[in-house]
């Protein structure tokens, strides 16, 4: 039996993947280069802009947003102020701004791409059957693996970091958009159709508003996943808090590693609570 199995030649899956990558790198190099340089420039400018804001003003703005978004409760507001002051105090402010840019970009692009894909998926059974396994694949493949094509396409830096983060973080937005639209009660869809709505009227007036809270839950997941890629992306040169964690790891500096990690946790808690608080239904 084992002989028989050994007689099957090894399938060159790795080679196929490699040559597909090579082909893409060669043929789309212009596109990738353009994305790389423009992306890098855009993100650098945003990081620069963020760092020119006086930290105290930045903290104040976040505090006000937190205060309003949490329904004028003090908990999140106080936590944001103390947490951000701590990060500033630990001399991690510039790193935080880099991380903000990375997470912001990865999340925004994920949302911009993810919601339309989710809508297509909800409208077509065929699309759902094709996209679902791809999403499963994207989510179960270890995040590190995405670094390899990212480097091949974009070299090192923040752009490949964003690329890898998007692949890792986009599935929840797609899935939850699909789910949210499919969960709209049938009677409401029928009501909308019975009044003679066009498909887009139905989508924008009824389905998307009713799916909003589900979609927002997906976006929250996407932001969190993008944040979890920060450390991994730093391995290919993405700047930010992740790089501090990585260098502490490489030098076995427990203290520095803990502080940088704590910075990430604080940032994660703030954006998690903020994105969740945008998700309150006004009609409930």
């Amino acid at each position: 039996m084992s002989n028989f199995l050994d007689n099957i030649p090894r399938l060159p899956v790795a080679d196929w993947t490699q040559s597909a990558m090579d082909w893409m790198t060669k043929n789309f190099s212009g596109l990738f280069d353009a994305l790389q340089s423009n992306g890098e420039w855009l993100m650098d400018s945003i990081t620069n802009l963020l760092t020119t804001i006086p930290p105290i003003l930045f903290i104040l703005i976040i505090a006000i947003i937190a205060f309003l978004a949490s329904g004028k409760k003090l908990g999140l507001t106080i936590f944001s102020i103390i947490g951000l002051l701590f990060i500033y105090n630990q001399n991690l402010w510039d790193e935080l701004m880099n991380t903000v840019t990375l997470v912001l970009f990865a999340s925004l692009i994920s949302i911009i791409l993810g919601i339309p894909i989710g809508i297509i998926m909800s409208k077509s059974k065929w699309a759902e059957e094709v996209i679902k396994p791809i999403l499963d694949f994207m989510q179960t493949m270890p995040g590190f693996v995405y670094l390899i094509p990212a480097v091949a396409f974009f070299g090192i830096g923040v752009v490949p970091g964003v690329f890898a983060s998007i692949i890792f973080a986009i599935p929840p937005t797609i899935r939850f958009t699909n789910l949210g639209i499919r969960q709209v009660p049938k009677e409401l869809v029928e009501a909308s159709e019975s009044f003679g709505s066009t498909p887009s009227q139905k989508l924008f007036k009824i389905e998307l508003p009713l799916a909003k809270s589900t979609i927002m839950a997906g976006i929250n997941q996407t932001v969190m996943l993008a944040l979890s890629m920060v450390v991994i992306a730093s391995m290919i040169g993405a700047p930010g808090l992740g790089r501090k964690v990585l260098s502490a790891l490489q030098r076995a500096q427990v203290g520095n590693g803990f502080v940088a990690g704590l910075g990430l946790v604080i940032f994660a808690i703030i954006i998690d609570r903020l994105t969740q608080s945008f998700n309150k239904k006004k009609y409930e």
Partner: protein
Amino acid sequence: MQKIKIDHVSKVFGKHTNQALKLVQNGASKKEILKKTGVTVGVYNASFSVNEGEIFVIMGLSGSGKSTLVRLLNRLIEPTNGDIFIDGENISKMNKEQLRNVRREKMNMVFQNFGLFPHRTILQNTEYGLEVRGISKEERRQKAEQALKNAGLLDFKDQYPHQLSGGMQQRVGLARALANDPDILLMDEAFSALDPLIRKEMQDELLDLQETMQKTIIFITHDLNEALRIGDRIAIMKDGQIIQIGTGEEILTNPANEYVRHFVEDVDRSKVLTAENIMIRPITVNVEQDGPKVALSRMREEKVSLLVAIDRARNLKGYITADDALESAKRGDKDIKKIVQTNMITVNHDTLIQDVFHVIYDAPTPVAVMKNNRLVGILIRGVVIEALAKGNEEAILHE
């Protein structure tokens, strides 16, 4: 005038539609077909037409295909075959845009669980139909507010649906459909989710509204009492087929088969049957030609002690009793005009039995049933009680 016409319409859910349709033709039941072919027959070979201004009730138990049938009318569900005409236009052959226009302008729907959009205020809900038609903001606001005002809900226009009670939500559902001013209203179990008292109130409101607006209404229900209360005509469905169409009275007095008979047995007959249905033949005497002796002999012949007095044109004059007739005969009177008592109580032929009951309870004599001021029959206490008892007896047997 004919408004809606449905011609041999069928709907089969699943793949082997032709095979299934053949099986139904051969009289196979829904269950057998599902087993053999894996398809569900929603509606089979339904044909009927509805006149303008009519309330047409489609009644059946759950799974009888009534909700599918109403959705075929506006093609929320696509018919498998058959034709559906509205104002002579074939809905089932229309393209998407033509269909949208029909939905926008001709018919709107009211749903069992109200179908209100939870993220829109009452006003925004009411505006919806006008909004998708692209009517300007001021105009649609004004129309929607008018519709809410008619429903007595204008004060609630800025609330969200969940803040209103079920009855109020369904009033909004109705107002939303009416804001569009459609010719046809499709009401899918519109009152079934409401409490019995509220339901009755809504039925009354619908009937009141209908009196002024004269829409063509297709009303789906599983409640026979509701069907009889509001329907001009009723179609009874079972297993996707229409088994009888007729007025409430026709269905009650002449059920098409055992199933319908079984269905109508527990109806509260007093709310459905009218005086005309249970009246008996009056034994009359003509005041213009008959004398007391003729009257007496007729009483003997028919074994009654009272005759209804009429003239040649069957106009009611009153009644005469045996005692008076006997005395009159002894006196040797030539006619009976003097002994006619004129205090006879009358009811109209379409009075419901439940209303007759109070009248007859206090009446010393039989009650005359009148149609266009002519005598058509009489009611005696025993007949009314018998009619009521018949319904109850059968209902008890089936409980």
